[in-house]
C-alpha cells in the first residue's frame, strides 16, 4: 500500500525480516550504533561498533504477487572506520560509527557520510555490472601478451558480469574536532554539511577536506565553568541557512547563518521551564536531550530526553506543543538506572513520512509509536518470539505498580540490557527498521 505513512494506530505492524546473528552471545563489534534510510527508502544503512557499514537494498516489488512484500537484502558491506590512536593525547579513537547520513542521489552512484568520534568520511557506493574485455596488450587474466604475437588490433568491448557493488572513500574529513562528534547533517543545498561535537559545530563543504568553518563554539575560557554541552545538531530540511542544536540542559537553539558568520548567538531558544515537583538528583541528567529531528515539512522539530518526546513548533519557543511520555514508570527508578548507567542511554527518535506519527525506543526491546493526529500511543516489542512471517505485533503494556493484569509486564521484570536506541522510518511507506543490540528488525504495515 503506497502512501505517506498514515496513522500509527490504525496501522497494524507485522514482522518482515530480522538481520544479524541469532545467538545471544553478542560480539561487541556487532552492536548496531546507527540506522538510516536513504531519501527514496530503497536503501537502508546500518553502522556498528566495529566500524562497519552494512547497506540493505529493497528488492523491486513483485507486482503480480501483492502479498509478497518487498524485502531488504544485503547490498554492500564495508569497513568504514578503523580504530586509531592519538599519540599526542594518549587516547584511543573508537571505530564505532556514530552516525550515517545519505546524500540525495544525483547520478547512478549513491553517497553517504559516516562518522566516528573524530573523522567523517564520504563514501561512494556504485554498481558494476559490466567489464571491458578484449584488450590488445593484456590477456583476460591480466598477464601481458608477448608483443611478437600481436598481429591485429581490436576494440575492447563491455561484457556483462555479475553485479558487484563497490564502496570507495571519496573524501576523508579529518582534524576538525577536538571532542567527540555526535552529529552530522547534510544541508539542503547539497554542497555543505555540518558536524557537531560536544562544544563546537563545524560547517564543511563536501568537496573540501582540509578545512572547515566553525559556526558554533560554546567552549568556555575556563573548562571548570563548563555547564552544558552540545548533544545533537541538524540542518533544516528546506532552509539551507537554518540549523538547530540541542544541549545537555534540555534547550534547543535555532541558528540562522545569514544573521552572522559565527552563530554563538542563537536566533531562537527553545526551552520549557522545569517542573519543580519533579526535581531530584537526576533532573539534570534526564533533561539532557539525546536527539533532535526536524519534521519532513520543516514546521516542527522533535526532541528526545530520557523520559519523554517533545514536539516543538518552530514559531513557539517557550514550550513544546506536544509532550509524550515514553516510559514514565522509570521516574521512580532513576537511582537504580543511575547505578547501572542506563540513565545515560541516548535514545533516538524519528518521524514517519507525513509527520503524523513519531517513534522512539525503550527498554526490554520495546519501542513506542506516538500518533500525533489521533493522540494515541502503542508499545510494541522487537523479539525473536514474534518472528513469524507477517505475524502481527501485539501491543505491550507495562504495569507500573499495583496489581499486574494478564499480558502486562511489571517494571521490575524489564530487561534493561535490551534497549532500542536506534530506529528509522521509511520516508514514504510504512516500513520501519528497529535496531536491538545486534539485530535489525524490519516491520511493515499489514496488507490485507
Amino acid at each position, binding site marked *: 500500500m503506497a502512501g505517506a505513512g498514515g496513522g500509527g494506530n490504525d496501522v497494524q505492524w507485522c514482522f518482515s525480516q530480522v538481520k544479524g546473528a541469532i545467538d545471544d552471545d553478542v560480539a561487541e563489534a556487532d552492536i548496531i550504533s546507527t540506522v538510516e534510510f536513504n531519501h527514496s527508502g530503497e536503501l537502508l544503512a546500518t553502522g556498528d561498533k566495529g566500524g562497519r557499514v552494512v547497506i540493505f537494498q529493497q528488492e523491486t516489488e513483485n507486482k503480480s504477487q501483492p502479498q509478497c512484500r518487498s524485502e531488504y537484502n544485503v547490498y554492500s558491506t564495508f569497513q568504514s572506520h578503523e580504530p586509531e590512536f592519538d599519540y599526542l593525547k594518549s587516547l584511543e579513537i573508537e571505530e564505532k560509527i556514530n552516525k550515517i547520513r545519505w546524500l540525495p542521489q544525483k547520478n547512478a552512484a549513491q553517497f553517504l557520510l559516516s562518522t566516528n568520534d573524530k573523522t567523517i568520511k564520504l563514501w561512494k557506493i556504485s554498481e558494476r555490472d559490466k567489464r571491458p574485455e578484449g584488450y590488445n596488450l593484456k590477456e583476460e587474466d591480466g598477464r601481458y601478451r608477448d608483443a611478437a604475437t600481436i598481429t591485429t588490433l581490436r576494440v575492447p568491448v563491455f561484457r556483462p558480469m555479475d553485479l558487484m557493488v563497490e564502496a570507495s572513500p571519496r573524501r576523508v574529513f579529518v582534524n576538525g574536532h577536538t571532542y567527540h562528534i555526535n552529529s552530522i547533517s547534510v544541508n539542503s543545498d547539497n554542497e555543505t554539511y555540518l558536524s557537531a561535537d560536544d562544544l563546537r559545530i563545524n560547517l564543511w563543504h563536501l568537496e573540501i577536506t582540509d578545512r572547515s568553518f*566553525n559556526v558554533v*563554539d560554546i567552549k*568556555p575560557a575556563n*573548562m571548570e565553568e563548563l555547564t552544558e554541552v552540545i548533544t545533537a545538531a541538524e540542518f533544516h530540511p528546506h532552509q539551507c541557512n537554518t540549523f538547530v542544536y540541542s544541549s*545537555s540542559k534540555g534547550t534547543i537553539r535555532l541558528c540562522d547563518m545569514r544573521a552572522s558568520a559565527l552563530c554563538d548567538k542563537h536566533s531562537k531558544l527553545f526551552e520549557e521551564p522545569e517542573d519543580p515537583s519533579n526535581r531530584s538528583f537526576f533532573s539534570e541528567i534526564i533533561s539532557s536531550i539525546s536527539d533532535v529531528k526536524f519534521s519532513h515539512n520543516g514546521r516542527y522539530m522533535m526532541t528526545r530526553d530520557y523520559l519523554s518526546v517533545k514536539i516543538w513548533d518552530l514559531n513557539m519557543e517557550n514550550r513544546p506543543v506536544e509532550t509524550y511520555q515514553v516510559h514514565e514508570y522509570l521516574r521512580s527508578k532513576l537511582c537504580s538506572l543511575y547505578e547501572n548507567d542506563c540513565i545515560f542511554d541516548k535514545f533516538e527518535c524519528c518521524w514517519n513520512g507525513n509527520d503524523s506519527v513519531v517513534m522512539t525506543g525503550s527498554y526490554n526491546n520495546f519501542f513506542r509509536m506516538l500518533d500525533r493526529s489521533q493522540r494515541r500511543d502503542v508499545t510494541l516489542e522487537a523479539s525473536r518470539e514474534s518472528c513469524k512471517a507477517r505475524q502481527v505485533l501485539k501491543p505491550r503494556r507495562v504495569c507500573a505498580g499495583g496489581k499486574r493484569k494478564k499480558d502486562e509486564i511489571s517494571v521490575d521484570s524489564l530487561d534493561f540490557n535490551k534497549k532500542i536506541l536506534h530506529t528509522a522510518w521509511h520516508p514514504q511507506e510504512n516500513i520501519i527498521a528497529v535496531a536491538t543490540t545486534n539485530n535489525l528488525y524490519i516491520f511493515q504495515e499489514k496488507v490485507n
Partner: protein
Amino acid sequence: MDVEAKRIMALSISKLYSLRTQRGGLSLHRGLLLSMTMRAARDIYHTAQLLRDAEEEQVVPCVPDAAIEELMEISKDSPQTSTPKEVAMKPQEPKETLEDDKENRCASERHSRKRRCKTAVEPDFLPLKEAKMDTDEEKQHLQGEVLRTNNGNSCRQAETLTAFPTNRAIVAC
C-alpha cells in the same frame, strides 16, 4: 536524605574515575553530568552534616551564614576552609581531567592522577593531596567576570562574558 546523598556522591566519584579508563577517551558529556550530580549530592550531604554539627554545638544564629560560606568555599575547593571533621574532596579534579589544555595541568596533579588509577578501591572521601593551583582565577570567579580567550583554539575575537555560579545546588530540606 543525606545517607542517599552520600551514596550518590560516592557512586558518582567512582563512575568519574572509571570514565578515564574507558576506551575512546573521556566523554565530556558524561563527565559533566556525573560531576553535576556529584556536586548536588555533595552539597546536600555537607549541608546536612553542618546542620547536624550546628545542632550539637547549639550555635544556632551564626551557623547558617558560616554554613553558606563553607559551602561556597568548598565548592570552589579552597583547602584553607575545609573543616577538621570532614575531608574535602576534589570536585575540580574531575573537571580538570575534562580540560583539554595540557598547559593548565600541573605535574604533581598528573602524578597523583597516575597513582590513583592504580588503586581499585572505591573511594569514599578523597584526601586533599595538594593545594589548588588557580587561586587567581578563583578570585576572578568571585568577582563574576571572566575574559573569554580562545587559547588558540579558534580564530575568534575574544568577548567578555559574565560568569555566574551555576553549580550551587538547591538545598532541599
